[in-house]
């Protein structure tokens, strides 16, 4: 669960989001040398590492989240609204979203939508989404995408009923 998008925020919740990937995950926070953190500051949450010891040890801020705090002072709790530390950064690609009966027919088709992939080079076992927030996998079928930009498809791929790629080929 990401940081709430509004309302009152707690510093402990922000630390949990940064270290436990969830604002409400109550797993004990870890400080330097694996000890419990002696203190949590907003600065230690907004930055990474353990250079604010003896405080909580933090990973780098996930700038792939749709909203994230900056590392500049002065820090503000309001910068944390909707921050999602484990948000997945997806790569958008132009896709021909109509399933075709034979894979090669997905080639040379005019793209008509945008789908989201783990990175810029779709591969077998990659999860595909039709929404930018990593939800709504496509239905099983054979589709095509344009490797760079929009226009007509120059790659074809097939996904199973979970939206996972089972084959991908250049056209």
């Amino acid at each position, binding site marked *: 669960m990401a940081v709430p998008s509004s309302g009152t925020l707690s510093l402990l919740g922000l630390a949990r989001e940064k270290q436990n990937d969830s604002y409400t995950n109550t797993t004990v926070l870890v400080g330097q040398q694996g000890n419990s953190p002696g203190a949590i500051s907003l600065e230690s949450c907004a930055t990474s590492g353990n250079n604010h010891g003896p405080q909580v040890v933090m990973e780098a801020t996930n700038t792939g989240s749709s909203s994230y705090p900056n590392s500049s002072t002065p820090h503000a709790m309001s910068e944390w609204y909707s921050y999602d530390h484990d948000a997945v950064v997806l790569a958008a690609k132009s896709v021909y979203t109509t399933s075709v009966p*034979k*894979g090669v*027919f997905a080639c*040379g088709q005019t793209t008509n939508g945008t789908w989201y992939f783990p990175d810029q080079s779709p591969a077998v076992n990659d999860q595909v989404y039709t929404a930018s927030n990593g939800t709504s996998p496509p239905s099983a079928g054979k589709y095509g995408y344009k490797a760079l930009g929009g226009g007509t498809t120059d790659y074809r791929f097939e996904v199973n009923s979970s939206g996972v790629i089972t084959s991908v080929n250049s056209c």
Partner: protein
Amino acid sequence: MKIEESKIKEHSGTSFNVTKTDGVSKIDFGNGKLIENADYYGKVFLGDCEDCTKITALYKDFTFDKILIGGLGLGLLPEYAKSVKNCSVIDVVENNQELIDYIDYLESPINITKGDALSYTPSKKYDLILIDLWWEEEDITQEIQDNIKNNYNSHLETNGKIILPLLEKEL
């Protein structure tokens, strides 16, 4: 180039059904094996799709006038060979008698023969022999490819080709 919709009748048979959705006919052989009356079918399989690099490469500097097609479907390939490629000989081998009886809208020089395209013995030679019997690429085993090549190799004109468009491959 697709079939004129007014020529295609809806059909409910034992081996396939033909339905129209939004004025577009679709033949359904069951288990997701569908062919839609669409422009791309002949365009892709007979080498006129600019972005279908692999298939189009098979037709580079290759012209054909006499063609044998294995698999009838809705008749999109023979119709394209006739209307767009202006082929003078267009023979089709199809083993489904119900389908042969149903497809009554193809005209000379298209000639349909009942037979198994995997073992059919032609009585003439062709510039292009195109076999389109499958929906899934993995169904076309190396053994099947070898058998097709052995069966048809002696029925090719000089510089003639056997093409399996689903595999984007010349045998």
